[in-house]
């Protein structure tokens, strides 16, 4: 099947409800990493463009914050319906720009996105403040008020879904936003912007595009934000946190990981083998919470590993637009170079390649950034390949003896984002899940990231939680109204 071309030839930014190019006319180009073909151009924002976006957001804020929860919820639901109506187009654009397979974008990325808007529409209708009588003549009311205009930066691994994670709660909370996608994968958000512009008042959502060092830095430097939100690497997370701290504004950060996917002898077998694949092959392993350290109990190690190798070797690596492709390409050559570098490092450290370990070629894949599903064995938890985020379809497999040993190894990481325990013993599942220092522990599943379950990291994996109504606390401020019902003087003065 030839590569489809559902995207526009060129896109503009959305600022104040208008489609605008960069102030100096500069553009960037997007390419499909599966074959190197040019897709579309989009603006490389100037500082003036980012300033204009912030100004437009503030101009919209005073009206938007007064929209009732009922009316905001209705708009969120309308956005969700339009996402679903445009699912196929959004999914294909995402697949081509990112390299991930259409079976994932159409069945997971885009539907997760629309569901986010539905979830938050429901969450705000159920919200209530608090009222208490401090004493017989004093009442205290607690209300939540929108924090204002926020700045948001999202990564290239789940561009559309991350946009939904960021925009849905912003709208729900009554805030306005300036959001910047990665310059690697800007197209799906720019396409989605057409839906947002159809539904929302001008200026409520503004989208600026461009390089991290330019548009991204202009956004971090802008004094007009009341909060920053970022999903990306821990290294850049430091920059975002510092930018927020200098302005004395809060930031929420969802950062990197090196999560432990732990298999006990009584794991549901076939589901567990799939669980290894889900943990590290979903999205070509380009997932912050990827199960990149696979811990297997010594009693089942040999048989389990052998079956995982067969399962990995069966995975069809192919063009992202083809329906039977299970794993697409990495997002670009630089990421692939990083992944291959780590495989080489692993070998130098003493690891063995059980399967994969090299570029995938043949069958037309030579022009793209394709990697074979890879398992590294003979790995010790202290090796670089077990400690550092590779961000590709490469998992290390480590044997363990008992709960204490695997818990210690799982926690021996600077990260704490995801992880899983596979067992039919509910007591063991809870013991292990509670002992591992991570924000999300899956039990007998992996990489399920729906709304309604909070997601976020411990340690260097970030600050704050998303995908749950708790994020509304980050986009609002607490107002206390303290009322004296007495008309008598205190007698102090």
């Amino acid at each position, binding site marked *: 099947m030839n590569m489809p071309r559902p995207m526009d030839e060129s896109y503009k930014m959305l600022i104040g409800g208008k489609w605008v190019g960069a102030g100096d006319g500069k553009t*960037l*180009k*997007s*390419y499909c990493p599966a074959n190197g073909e040019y897709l579309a151009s989009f603006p*490389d924002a100037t500082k003036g463009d980012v300033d204009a976006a912030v100004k437009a957001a503030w101009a919209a804020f005073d009206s938007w914050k007064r929209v009732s929860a009922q009316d905001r919820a209705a708009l969120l639901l309308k956005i969700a319906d339009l996402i679903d109506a445009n699912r196929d187009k959004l999914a294909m654009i995402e697949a081509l720009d990112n390299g991930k397979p259409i079976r994932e974008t159409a069945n997971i990325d885009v539907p997760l996105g629309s569901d986010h808007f539905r979830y938050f529409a429901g969450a705000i209708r159920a919200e209530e403040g608090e009222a208490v009588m401090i004493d017989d003549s004093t009442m205290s009311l607690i209300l939540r008020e929108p924090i204002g205009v926020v700045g948001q*930066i999202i*990564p*290239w*691994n789940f561009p559309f879904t991350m946009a939904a994670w960021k925009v849905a709660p912003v709208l729900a909370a009554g805030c306005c936003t300036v959001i910047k996608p*990665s*310059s*690697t994968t800007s197209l799906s958000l720019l396409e989605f912007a057409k839906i947002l512009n159809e539904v929302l008042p001008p200026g409520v959502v503004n989208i600026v595009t461009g*390089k*991290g*060092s330019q548009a*991204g*830095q202009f956004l971090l430097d802008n004094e007009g934000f009341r909060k920053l939100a970022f*999903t*990306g*690497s821990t*290294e*850049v997370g*430091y*920059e975002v946190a510092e930018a927020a701290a200098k302005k004395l504004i809060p930031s929420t950060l969802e950062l*990197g990981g090196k999560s432990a996917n732990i298999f006990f002898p009584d794991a549901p077998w076939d589901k567990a083998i799939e669980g290894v694949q889900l943990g590290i092959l979903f999205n070509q392993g*380009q997932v*912050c919470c990827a199960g990149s350290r696979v811990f297997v109990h010594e009693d089942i190690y040999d048989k389990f590993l052998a079956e995982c190798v067969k399962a990995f070797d069966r995975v069809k690596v192919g063009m992202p637009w083809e329906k039977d492709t299970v794993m697409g390409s990495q997002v*670009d*050559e*630089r*990421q692939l*170079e*990083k992944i*291959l*570098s*780590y495989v*080489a*490092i692993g070998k130098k450290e003493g690891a063995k390649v059980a399967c994969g370990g090299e570029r995938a070629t043949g069958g037309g894949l030579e022009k793209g950034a394709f990697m074979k599903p890879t398992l590294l064995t003979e790995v010790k938890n202290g090796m*670089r390949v077990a400690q*550092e*985020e590779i*961000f590709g379809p490469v998992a290390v497999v480590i044997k363990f003896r008992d709960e204490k040993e695997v818990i210690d190894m799982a926690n021996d990481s600077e990260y704490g984002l995801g992880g899983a325990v596979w067992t039919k013993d509910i007591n063991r599942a809870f013991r292990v899940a509670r002992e591992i220092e991570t924000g999300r522990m899956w039990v007998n599943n992996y990489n399920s990231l729906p709304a309604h379950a909070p997601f976020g990291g411990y340690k260097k994996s970030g600050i704050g939680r998303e995908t749950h109504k708790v994020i509304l606390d980050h986009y609002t401020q607490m107002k206390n109204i303290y009322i004296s019902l007495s008309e008598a003087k205190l007698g102090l003065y």
Partner: protein
Amino acid sequence: MKITSETPVEDIVGIPGAVQYFVERGVSPVSCSGAFPRTLGRLLEIKEVADPELFIAGLDAAFGAPGGAGGGREERER
């Protein structure tokens, strides 16, 4: 291009082999955020590289100086 501590990382990572150089020395210049969006010096500071000058000198010798592997490299804006 001479590579110094002020060189944007974005300008370096497109050079074939440069990412490998970084990773071999314990620094990841690319991530889900794309290329690190600040200077080489800032990245090495965050990663607490013990001898940043040595790192930069090696990178410049391999990829930055005229006649090095980095001269005239193709860069696709992503």
